[in-house]
């Protein structure tokens, strides 16, 4: 199990730096399928460079969640970052989510804690379950009031933490998050 806080910095950024071998100009944690340059001597050694598809997919999901959570907090989309980590319906999902936040006039603050399960390679795609803990997240409406907890189709609050299964597909040699599926009946 891998756990990280989603705000820039900390474990996630360290992992991203280790994966890309450099800081980059816009903090883009991205995993390349092709070998990248060697990590600089100052890069933390705690996060080994992913080698297998499962490891690369997990690193990309971590990167995606960092990007997504940044977008939620900033209520804006940086397509340069999003393109490197998402595709398909998830590319659209995050835009819709951010668009709704922006249109509502509300805010998302704080940090999600993501704990990734073991990747499951299904050949054409890889599945990874993220145990998402939103305890540290505050979501407010236009008036600054806290909004109710997320609800399921039955109108009842969904569990926290909540397991969310992500599908990653390989496009042009890079693993990208393509869809999500909330496992509302399961627990972390």
């Amino acid at each position: 199990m891998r756990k990280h806080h989603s705000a820039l910095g900390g474990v996630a950024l360290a992992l991203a730096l280790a994966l890309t071998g450099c800081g980059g100009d816009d903090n883009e944690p991205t995993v390349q399928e092709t070998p990248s340059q060697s990590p600089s001597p100052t890069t933390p050694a705690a996060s080994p460079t992913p080698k297998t598809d499962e490891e690369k997919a997990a690193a990309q999901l971590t990167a995606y969640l960092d990007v997504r959570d940044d977008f939620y907090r900033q209520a804006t989309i940086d397509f340069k970052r999003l393109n490197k980590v998402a595709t398909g319906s998830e590319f659209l999902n995050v835009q819709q989510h951010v668009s709704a936040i922006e249109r509502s006039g509300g805010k998302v603050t704080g940090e999600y804690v993501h704990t990734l399960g073991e990747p499951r390679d299904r050949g054409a795609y890889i599945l990874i379950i993220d145990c998402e803990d939103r305890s540290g997240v505050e979501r407010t409406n236009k008036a600054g009031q806290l909004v109710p907890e997320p609800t399921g189709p039955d109108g009842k609050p969904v569990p926290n933490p909540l397991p969310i299964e992500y599908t990653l597909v390989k496009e042009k040699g890079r693993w990208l998050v393509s869809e999500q599926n909330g496992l509302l009946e399961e627990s972390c």
Partner: protein
Amino acid sequence: MLARVVAAAIVALVGLVVAPVPLAAAEGDGQCTQVVDPITNEVKWVCENGGGDPGGGGQNPGGGSSTCTYAGSEIPCSLGGGQWSSKNACYVIPTPVSPQPAPPPGQTDQDGDWHNCIQPAGYLGSNQPVWVEAGETLIDPAVLAQRAIASMNLDPITIGIVPEPGPDRVGLVGLPVWMWVEDQAPNTYGPITASASQGPVSVTATAKVSSIVWDMGDGTKKTCTGPGTPYEDRYGKQDSPTCGHRYEQMSDDQPDDAYQVTATSHWVVEWSGGGQSGTIEFDITTEPLPIRIGEAQVLTQ
């Protein structure tokens, strides 16, 4: 995988944004995705079944599917209330942005509004709203296709069958039963074409029955791909060359001593317009028709 993208129903919730568009088969049943209320900022999870029934299978047309393309790939034509705009190469959200930025050069506030867009995967531009001119209708052509279908006033077929229904009519076990479409008409069997339009968008739809499932009431369902052949006395005890059946048991153990026969027409509607095309499929079923079946030895006693 691509077929699933197109077939996936896009749940259009009023006031909500939604994007359950699976690209790869997830394990287990159903797909649950987050939606955010653009008014309250509340998060809800919406689930849809993995299997689904794109054809609807009922008396009313289902949503069907429509086809939009971008960069050579099929994509859903509507998304979370937004409609795909070939002109802007994005899903335009109908609600104008607020506050409105200044109109583009040469335009005034009266000429249109700025709208947010949901960009397709691969988009590398900036997150800027698009200008939609006044009168430029943001309507899903699939919705117009549904209106065109509604204007067709489609009806179930009139059942043609021998032995005929009626209190003094009895067919015999083992003898041929002929089924056909009686009084075939465009609105009961097709083809029938109709159009619907709104603003500059016009859609033309052509509907026809692709097959009829005859439920004979004895547990047998016979699928006939044509309208069947009307029976004439000169055919005697011949089997129907196109659509027939033989009962193996009397109907005296059935309610009202009769088998309840229904015919379900499977309609296929091809439509195009508004830069899109698609197919909508649905079924229309007749009221049950009682057919009594006896045995010769019983009838002669």
